């Protein structure tokens, strides 16, 4: 099974090495259709996103139709077919976060970054996305940057949080 270490190293990998790693992942998951979501998950970890070529590769290796692969990955908002920025900023709009002001935070993020949901800034630094409940309702409104969670955010905190990243 692919280790966390390997995922951390993908930035330094060539395309060829990435595909070789993906092939290992598919083999580790026995090329089973029922493991498609996990495989897509790992593929996104390796490539950062799921471009057409990667979808072709997975379909080919797993002997699935490419439309099937596409169908699964478009269903889940976690998967992206667009390249992601260095930082993926996600704001939770689950019920608790929404009523505690998640929507205002999102508007502020759009404003500051100058992009819409699902888009990446031109300098490839930030991508913006929306989540539906990450189970951190006690911290509402919650926001994540890559895997780090920020609690009780409000529009005034946005500049400081983003500023620390750059």
């Amino acid at each position: 099974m692919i280790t966390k270490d390997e995922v951390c190293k993908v930035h330094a990998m060539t395309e060829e090495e990435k595909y070789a790693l993906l092939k290992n992942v598919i083999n580790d998951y026995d090329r089973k259709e029922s493991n498609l979501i996990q495989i897509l998950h790992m593929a996104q970890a390796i490539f950062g996103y799921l471009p057409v070529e990667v979808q072709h590769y997975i379909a080919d290796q797993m002997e699935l139709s490419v439309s099937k692969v596409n169908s699964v990955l478009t269903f889940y908002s976690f998967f992206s077919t667009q390249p992601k920025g260095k930082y993926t900023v996600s704001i939770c709009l689950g019920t608790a976060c929404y009523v505690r002001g998640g929507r205002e935070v999102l508007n502020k993020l759009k404003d500051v970054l100058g992009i819409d949901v699902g888009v990446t800034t031109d300098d490839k630094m930030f991508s913006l996305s929306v989540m539906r409940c990450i189970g951190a309702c006690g911290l509402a409104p919650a926001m994540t940057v890559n895997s780090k969670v920020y609690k009780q955010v409000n529009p005034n905190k946005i500049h400081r949080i983003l500023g620390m990243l750059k």
Partner: protein
Amino acid sequence: MAKKIKISINGVSVEIDQDTTILDAARQTGVIIPTLCYHKDLCVAGNCRVCIVEIMGQKRLTAACATPCEEGMDILTNSLKVRNSRKHIIELLLSEHNADCTRCYKNGNCELQKLASEYKIMTQDFIRLVPFKNYTIDQFSPSIIKDDSKCIRCQRCVRTCAELQGVNALTVAHKGDQMKITTFFEKAMNDVVCTNCGQCINHCPTGALVEKNYIEEVWDAIADKTKHVIVQTAPAVRVGLGEELGFGPGVRVTGKMVAALKRLGFDAVMDTDFTADLTIMEEGTELLTRLKRKMVDHDPDVKFPMATSCSPGWIKYIEHMYPDYLDHLSTCKSPQQMFGALAKTYYAKARNLDPETIVSVSIMPCTAKKFEANRPEMHDSGYRDVDYVLTTRELAIMIKQAGIDFMRLDDVHYDRLMGESTGAGVIFGATGGVMEAALRTAYELVTGRDVPFDNLNITPVRGMEGVKEATVKIENPLKEWAFLEGVELKCAVAHGLVNAHKVMESIRSGESNYQFIEFMACPGGCLGGGGQPIPTNPEIRRKRAEAIYAEDEGMPLRKSHQNPEIIKIYKDFLDHPLSEKSHHLLHTHYSPRDRF
């Protein structure tokens, strides 16, 4: 025997087999429950909710198509609760549907329209969502138009593409209110693995998937006095057309169809069955030549099994999915394209016409034929071999537009030169027919005797089984075919591309050792084609097949090589099967395409 259980439907007690769905149980007892996402050819989806019923004692309404009956169930199909909910469901479907019915190609044959009419949806209680959605209409394919604004997301097309055809060109993408039926990466149908078979059209309950029609172009050609417009009709059209014009399924309307075509104003009405017979001459000879090359010349390049090449859906499928097996295809063009190539050469010469002025139209049970006629490979006459392809449905529309009372037409015969056919040509319309026709002729060519089946009926290759097999042992061949003595010719027939896939996989793995295989893209063969009248279901396909075989039995000649016009064309024009001229006009090669 299945175990019987007792249930009650609308207060009437009935006894039914265990595991029957509520929908089937109701139908068996004469109660109609409306459906949309349900289709007899496909697995149950239960996503449209139109078939909801009330089961006494249960709080929530249940989808009848997806719920098996249980002992003692008390089912109401028309309670106040059911009626109100069903009406709301239809209204909700309509709120997302571009209900511009009078301008819709499916006007008059739309299941949603029919439901709305039955339930008299006169008001609009829900917001119309159509103006807020950015729907696309894909018109790039020469065969199929996909209009998302008409789609009710029942997924019949997706299940058709996956379960019947194994092509998976259409799929579901995104979720919730964004969910839509689309192709990979929302490309045009023309840019993906779509085989243009049109089965999605036959299974679509609304006008979201329809054929690209060429009715006006054909009317224009007929009206143009400088054009000589000729038409050919495929074998399966004669057993389907009647369904669009007032007859029940399985009624043969050959003579009436010819009469109607003449009244529409075509200058000559001829028969694709003629070139079906010609295909047998060419393909049968090709098979025997391949056998000779393999067994006598030990040519390592000769490929077995040889696969038929009549079905353009199958051709595009093999180009995409098994490009390394393209050499296995017979080099014969399909009967439609043979006819087209001859129309602008042989026919033009015989009738002393400038091929430039000939417009060649074909009536096909098929939407893939539209794509085929459009192929760059199909210009061997020096012109586009077939100019316009109309489906059975489009012909019915023209007949209605022309005000022809089809029922009252007297039978008329096809025009001469390319209008004569045999029973062998007719059965091309049914799965197994090409195989049967080929065996009738090839066996006689080799042995000088009739194929050893009762009354020429090669029953093992008939019927609706997905993959059929037959073995014909050659005994006492004529002198020139002596090397075939004792050879067992192993044949297979597959219809529906999901079955083609099975056979191809068995060839690739080496577990099968067929010499000759017939592949048809559509379930049931051409008679179940994507251009045939809607609905098409197992029962209707069976009736059309019976009609095809009845037509065959009724023909005075039932073997392709006996067709007098076939004998004449070889004498006057082509010399002999696989001659240089026939190679030029009647044969072709196909090229690999991407799997994605």
